[in-house]
């Protein structure tokens, strides 16, 4: 499943006038590729990720996912797109605090339409795959380390076998050792499961290990 981004532009109205967060961006990602997007703070990385994940609407341009323009989908269909084809991994992990690790993973499965009877076993499998044991699975996020929370977040993102995994600074809140472990995990996933992964990061070391790296500066894509 490929992504083709054509002439994508996103502008915001701010007090100082119009801000072009993304300025006529075009690029493509092939199935199973591990792509990184780097750039300074405010360069438009997260804005681009939001457009790719159908979290926000671009001002102009198109995002073709297997030939279908996701920017033209209705709100309901965009929700379905997010639940079935996209997996998100966030810098802040963004686990629901009053649900256990297991329940957080089950939540993603519920939204993806997995049968209720299968969710628990599937969640345990996913958590085991990312290195979370059964005891840790029953803990709430507050009782897990940052690295463990990010692993749970990855398990949640992978629950519905998404075509793409979008990761926003997945190692940004982790120490270098843990960050490296998370990166390895993502890398292995892209290889073993043929999952297309797009990572937004500041970390040039990580970016250097991906299949392709795009650089954003002031909303423009500099490197292909």
């Amino acid at each position, binding site marked *: 499943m490929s992504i083709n981004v054509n002439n994508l532009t996103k502008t915001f109205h701010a007090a100082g006038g119009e801000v072009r967060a993304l300025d006529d961006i075009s690029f493509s990602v092939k199935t199973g590729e591990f792509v990184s997007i780097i750039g300074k703070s405010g360069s438009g990385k997260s804005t681009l990720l939001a457009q790719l994940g159908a979290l926000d609407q671009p001002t102009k341009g198109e995002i073709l996912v297997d030939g279908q323009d996701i920017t033209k989908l209705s709100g309901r269909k965009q929700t379905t797109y*997010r639940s079935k084809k996209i997996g998100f991994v966030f810098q802040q992990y*963004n686990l629901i605090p*009053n649900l256990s690790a297991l329940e957080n993973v089950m939540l993603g499965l519920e*939204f993806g339409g997995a049968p209720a009877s299968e969710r628990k076993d599937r969640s345990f499998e996913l958590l085991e795959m990312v290195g979370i044991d059964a005891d840790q699975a029953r803990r709430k996020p507050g009782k897990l380390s940052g690295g463990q929370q990010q692993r749970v977040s990855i398990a949640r993102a992978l629950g519905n076998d998404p075509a793409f995994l979008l990761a926003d600074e997945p190692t940004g809140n982790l120490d270098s050792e843990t960050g490296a472990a998370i990166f390895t995990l993502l890398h292995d996933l892209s290889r073993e499961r043929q999952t297309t992964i797009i990572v937004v990061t500041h970390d040039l070391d990580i970016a250097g290990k991906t299949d392709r790296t795009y650089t954003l500066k002031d909303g423009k894509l500099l490197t292909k």
Partner: protein
Amino acid sequence: MNVISRGVRGALRSPIRAGAIVIMLAISIGLIIAMLAAKAGVEVRISEVKANAATGITVAPAGIRGFAGGGDPLSAEQVATIKGTEHVASVASTLTDQLGTDDTNLTPSLELGSFGQRQQRFESSSGSGAEMTPPAMTGSAATGDAMRQAPTPRTTVTGTTDPDSVATNGGELTLASGKAIDAGGAENVALIGKTLAEKNDLQPDDTFTMYGQTFTVNGIFSTDNAFQDSGVIVPLTTLQTLTEQAGAVTSATVTVDSSDNVAAVVSSLKDSLGDKADITSEQERAESSVSSLSSISGLATTGVIGATVAAAVIVLLMMTMIVRERRREIGVIKAIGGTNAKVITQFVTEALTLTVIGGIIGIGLGIAVSGSITEGLVQNQQNSAATNRQAGPGGMGGPALIRGAQQGIQNVTGTVSPAVIGGGIGLTLLIAIVGSAVPAWLIARVRPAEVLRSE
């Protein structure tokens, strides 16, 4: 785990905050239940007052009120005319007399007092026709003292076709002991007021003398009215015969078949009886009672509305605060595929959970305090009515209206019926739904991109 169980767990995420909210809701919902119970009790009483008092008409001989005034009693023909009037369902006839010490061996139980002495100051001694000296004027300076008889307390005897008409509560006469009399007969049987019976040490089946005849005590009655409890009740015909007033009646209480026909019956009676009778409809009295009751009902309604609005505002503010606090979480749920409907359902479930817990406690609280709150509302209304009466002008109609109003608002009790509980539950759900509406709108407006905002 589905969206409902997530909502329930989410509601209890912060026990201290949830507890505080539940307490506030419980108080509001308890107040709603208590007010609904008071309103239901008042509505029942209004129906009773309208059903009972609104169909009553009192016909008294013109110029006679109790033992005061002057004129002729109603005759048998006039009573027959009353009974024959269209829409008259029944007539309770009454003749009253007073027993002096020569008329009976009963010892009066009422003290004469200054009021009684003043009432007797014009009466003659030994039938001489000489005017008695008022008690205040007795003394050495007064002339003709030897000619004047000292005032003596008397016992009231009531001949009636319906002993219940003597009851002061508008219901049935309460017998403390013994059995009723056949008020339609002409036997020498009597019901004795409780105070009078105690004074004379009388029990059922005892006898006493009156008008030179021996009477059997059938029963002892109690009305909680000092005047009535010092009297004697006998069949109307018996008293008419013994006092040589065949067919005479000093008061007729008419019951009309429907409150809608009261005005027509009053009009017919005024036409047929002319100036020989004073006719008083009890509708005015009922309206006075209903007015007082309606005030309580209105107050209760205001309380229900106020408590409902307060509870809805509590839920609204609580949910608004929770949604604002958890914008990021809402964004996460939307970003990973949660629909607006699911997120809203989860948060409405949270509101509903707290409201239902508050509702259960509130209903229990409401049932517990409904009695005292109803009592407080009635007491407040009675005090208010009393203050208004003291400030207003007096008049002949005053005592009757006061009695009417008091009888109307007495015996009002909070009624916690299934309908009240149902109403409370309905309002509780309404509170949750209304209180969640704005937060739901806020949730729908949260963009999933919120999740990408940095802390």
